[in-house]
């Protein structure tokens, strides 16, 4: 009798384990188990079961955190291509294949030559990523892509065709400051300020613009970015979202976003309500779109119009540049597949191409898109 009782308890315990794993959210069987014929035709059952259990495991994120702590204790400092520093996550940007570098540089070169043929000067900068600047987060012996050398090589190949602006040095010189987000793969507003300083000096002749010209507004001090979401290591301080608002002269801005979903307009550079709806990073210019037009109602004495080809790093420095131009058209060629039929280079006084090294080395990015403006 006693033996039977023990047997029943053991069976109940054994059945409880899969029950806890399989049925925490309404059950596995109805949704995931295929018919017998499907099971015979493929490894459907084993694979599905593995995916389901791995996805729905009770206390998954906590257990993953423990696992990551164990790995870090064992020397691991990289997870899914992201370096895990003491208090920062840094994406490990890889060197491009030589043919991609060659194709991209040729596309930029062709574009610059075309622009010059219609009397427009192209300014060009490659913005380094955190893995080239935030040395402390990069583990010892890690084979990190030498972005400094890469940038110099690209500038060298494009010399004489456009004006290259060095944004590496200002970011590197100020690397002890908050240049890159700790949990997001992007440049902070502080980093954006230094990029802006380098750009404005060369493009506008503005030398060392002072912080004092801006009111600093802290939007959030508990922001966690995309790198944090993908990392099992959660022992990273949150980021601070900061707005630099030009305070010297009152200005009004109209920011218009155009992409395949339609048109959206904001009457500010910093639509703060985006934070309330959970799109924290969109507090800068309202986020990214294929085409963003920024019109300043009270520009400086100059009536300059700027055409910018850029990527998400523009969110950091564009609010600063907006103070100097009557109109800026920012084209994000990575965003959707727009034809930009109403964009003519002749309509702009200056053209700036500003890409992060990561965007620039992405396969088929710049060359496949920028050529649509040639011979228009």
């Amino acid at each position, binding site marked *: 009798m006693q033996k039977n009782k*023990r*047997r029943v308890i*053991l*069976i109940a315990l*054994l*059945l409880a*384990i*899969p029950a806890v*794993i*399989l049925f925490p959210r309404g059950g596995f069987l109805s949704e995931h188990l295929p018919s017998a014929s499907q*099971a*015979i*035709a*493929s*490894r459907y*059952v*084993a694979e599905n*079961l*593995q995916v*389901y*259990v*791995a996805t729905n*495991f009770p206390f*998954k994120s906590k*257990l*993953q955190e*423990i*696992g990551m702590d*164990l*790995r870090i*204790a*064992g*020397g*691991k*400092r*990289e997870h899914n291509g992201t370096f895990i520093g003491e208090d920062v996550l840094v994406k490990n940007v890889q060197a491009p294949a030589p043919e991609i570098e060659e194709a991209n540089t040729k596309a930029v070169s062709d574009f610059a030559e075309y622009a010059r043929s219609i009397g427009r000067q192209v300014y060009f900068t490659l913005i380094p990523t955190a893995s080239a600047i935030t040395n402390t987060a990069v*583990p*010892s*012996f*890690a*084979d990190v892509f030498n972005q400094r050398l890469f940038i110099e090589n690209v500038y060298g190949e494009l010399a004489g065709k456009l004006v290259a602006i060095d944004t590496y040095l200002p970011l590197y010189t100020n690397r002890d400051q908050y240049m890159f987000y700790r949990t997001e793969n992007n440049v902070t507003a502080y980093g954006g300020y230094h990029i802006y300083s380098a750009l404005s000096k060369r493009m506008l002749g503005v030398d060392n613009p002072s912080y004092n010209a801006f009111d600093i507004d802290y939007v959030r001090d508990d922001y966690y970015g995309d790198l944090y979401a993908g990392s099992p290591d959660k022992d990273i301080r949150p980021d601070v979202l900061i707005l630099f608002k030009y305070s010297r002269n009152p200005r009004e801005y109209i920011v218009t976003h155009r992409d395949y979903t339609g048109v959206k307009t904001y009457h500010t550079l910093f639509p703060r309500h985006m934070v309330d709806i959970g799109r924290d990073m969109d507090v800068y210019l309202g986020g990214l779109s294929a085409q963003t037009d920024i019109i300043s109602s009270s520009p400086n004495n100059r009536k300059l119009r700027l055409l910018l080809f850029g990527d998400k790093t523009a969110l950091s420095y564009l609010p600063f540049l907006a103070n100097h131009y009557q109109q800026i058209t920012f084209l994000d060629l990575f965003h959707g597949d727009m034809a930009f039929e109403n964009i003519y280079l002749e309509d702009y006084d200056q053209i700036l191409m500003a890409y992060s090294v990561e965007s620039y080395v992405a396969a088929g990015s710049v060359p496949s898109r920028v050529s649509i403006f040639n011979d228009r």
Partner: protein
Amino acid sequence: MQIINQLSLDTVLFPASLSFVYVILPLLLALHHIFPARLRVGVLAVTSLLLYLMIQPDGLILMVVSVALDYIAVRLMNRHDDRQDIKRLCVIFSVVKNLVIIAVTGFLVQTRGVPLMLGTLIYTLSGMDAVIQMYKKECPYELDAIKFTLYCCFFPRLSAGPLYSYKDFDAQMINPSLSSTNLVYGVTAFLLGAVKALIIGAQLSDLYLQILDFPAESASVLSAWMLVIIFALAIFYIMSGLSEMAQGIGLMVGFKLPQNFYFPYQSRSVADFFERFNITAAAFIRKNVYKNLAGKAGKAYQDLPNLIVFGMLMGLWFGLRVNHMVWGLYLALFMFMEKYLYNRILVQLPTLMCRFYTLCVVLSSFTILSVNSLAQSVASVRLMFSFFSDSVPLYNNQIMYIMSSNWLLLLSSCVLATNLGNVISHWVRKTLPRTYTALNAAVSVVLLVLLTTLSL
């Protein structure tokens, strides 16, 4: 890693996956305890086939047909027990059929890149062994198809063994010994095996592949040494882990399976290495091939070819490749020299020196097994000894990064490959016999946490 690559690790390591540990294994054990003792063998046979269907559905028919043909051979031998010619024909048919399956699947793996079917080697060799044993009257004819199927297809051992004789298994099938102590020890052995295979072995094989993928300009003397050392550790942890998982599951359902690995890198000689590395496969080859070739004739010139055949078959266990045969040949030559040239010296040497000698021979042999061609093996050896070359650095950032990022894994895999854990376990068992089972349960919990957190 060709050896690892040809067997998809996901498939081989399925029994170490969370879905198996938390869903399939508890269900299987519950089922095993729900059914009465007389039906348990049947339940295990059916669940073994169902699990194979889940993991390797495209190989099920081949397995069932192969086992069925061996079973028919046994039935025919039983029916014509007085006809030696028919019995011999049955044995020849079984041996040829199984060798053809092994050869054809191996050939397809090597030439067409077809993934190796899980367990092909195990169920064919098991079927063949059973037929031979029954032919030799070492055990009675097995007329129960379910028992015969379970012997050939018992799922936990399909990944990497162990092989065992039919008569040993048959005795256990009559009365599988279920006890709470066996359950606890079984769980510990299973989880220890899972951690060894999935957490240590699979990660080491990842490191191995990373080093193998180094471009030529990133090669260094240290990377060449690490390639061989990591390969040696990876192959040991994956294979011994899988075997221990099989032993653990066996204990949980009442079967005691033989040990397949016993700290091979502590061997005192190459011959001793084969007593500790893939033990059951070596025993199988020794019993069915080496002894039949009159391996104990005692004359060196007679024994040499037999040892070579033995070594080459041990190499072919890992797949049909020239490298694998040369690996076996290389070790067979050392076995020959140990037996006939420097046996006396080896016996007189201190244990530590013997172990060092064996480790050097075995590690050097892995330069043959760890790469895809003999040309690569030669290049690998050349690189390992390029200490004074101007063109090859002693070390570089790439290999140092891998080592520094995985120092705990590398260190613990070296320590756990020794018998230190075993010594501690025996000491605890001797000094604290009453708490030993409780400690086993505690170790199981720690292993389960490790397996879960590092698998997710």
